[in-house]
């Protein structure tokens, strides 16, 4: 221990003496760069790329606005993909007007479907900025640009030709137009293969 102490004391005294004498020191050599520069540059480039590329991609896909803020929610048997932050969006078409549009669509027999009278509203929900809706039986409706939609479920009592009818209707919350619809009319005991668990059970 003492020997090391002595060496350290001597060393530091020598350090003072040597540093105090510029002649003891060779002139500084020109500082050269090394391959570390290339490594550092490559690393920097990699980091920049790692940060920039996702930002560019996010910017490019932001035409289908802000995927990062899109959420999926379950509403009355519908699976809805929509914008996350839609607080405060209210429909121009109220619930009664939307229900009326849905009932009219079912009664019209539009698209070659059986015209059904006497249906009733089972559920109705409004969702803003909706990208797509999937019904419980797996059928899918995409809306393209986000829409404000009323999601309506209808049920009709037995009537000539059809013992049971269930329908899902998407009504545009701004215009009252029908954005999408599915109708299931059937006679027991043969229910459609796509029948969801929500279907009225056959007697």
């Amino acid at each position, binding site marked *: 221990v003492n020997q090391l102490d002595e060496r*350290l*004391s001597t060393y530091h005294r020598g350090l003072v003496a040597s540093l105090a004498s510029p002649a003891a020191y060779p002139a500084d050599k020109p500082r050269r760069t090394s391959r570390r520069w290339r490594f550092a540059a490559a690393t920097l480039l990699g980091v920049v790329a790692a940060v920039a590329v996702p930002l560019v991609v996010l910017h490019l896909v932001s035409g289908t606005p802000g995927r990062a803020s899109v959420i999926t929610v379950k509403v009355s048997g519908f699976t809805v993909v929509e914008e996350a932050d839609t607080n405060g969006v209210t429909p121009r078409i109220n619930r009664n007007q939307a229900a009326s549009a849905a009932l009219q669509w079912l009664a019209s027999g539009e698209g070659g479907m059986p015209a059904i009278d006497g249906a009733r509203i089972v559920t109705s929900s409004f969702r803003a900025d909706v990208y797509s809706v999937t019904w419980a039986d797996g059928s899918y409706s995409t809306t393209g640009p986000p829409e404000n939609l009323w999601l309506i479920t209808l049920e009709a009592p037995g009537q000539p030709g059809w013992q049971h009818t269930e329908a899902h209707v998407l009504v545009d919350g701004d215009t009252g137009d029908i954005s999408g619809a599915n109708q299931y009319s059937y006679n027991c005991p043969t229910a459609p293969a796509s029948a969801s668990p929500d279907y009225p059970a056959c007697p």
Partner: protein
Amino acid sequence: MSAQMVEGTAPSPETVGRAQAAPLSTATDVAELLEEAQPRLLALAYSVLRDRGLASDAVQDTMERALRAWSTLRSPASSGAWLAKICLRQSSRLRRKELLRSWLRLPRDGVSAELLAADIDLERAIAKLPPRQRAILALHYLYGFSLDESAGVLGVRPGTARSHLARALNTLRQELQQ
């Protein structure tokens, strides 16, 4: 300065700095004291930075700051520790600034080993120590500060200073035995 040191042992705090015990009243006194402190400050800065050019810069900064702040020094008798503290702070600041640049440069090829040819093994072993451990070695063996005083200069607890010194000495013993 070194004439007052006892050969082979760490100097006692009483022997550190001729002018420290006397009150300083004139600018000339201050200038003389700073002039006299420079060699050891240079060695202290070098201990941290391991680069003479940077150490000179650190000492230069220390001098400027010391002159500006001299009036705030409460006791001229403690100017040695005060200057060492400023010097270590400037050295650390320069070291942080130089960290990336020194990493990018080619390693220096044994300049300091040539400088201290008398004990190359010890020089190489010290070069491997972390800056904080080199600093406490310098404060203890160059300035003769006790561990408590060194801790005060470094701004750490005495236990931490003791730990740094113990680790440094252990490392040096191991390196020197190899």
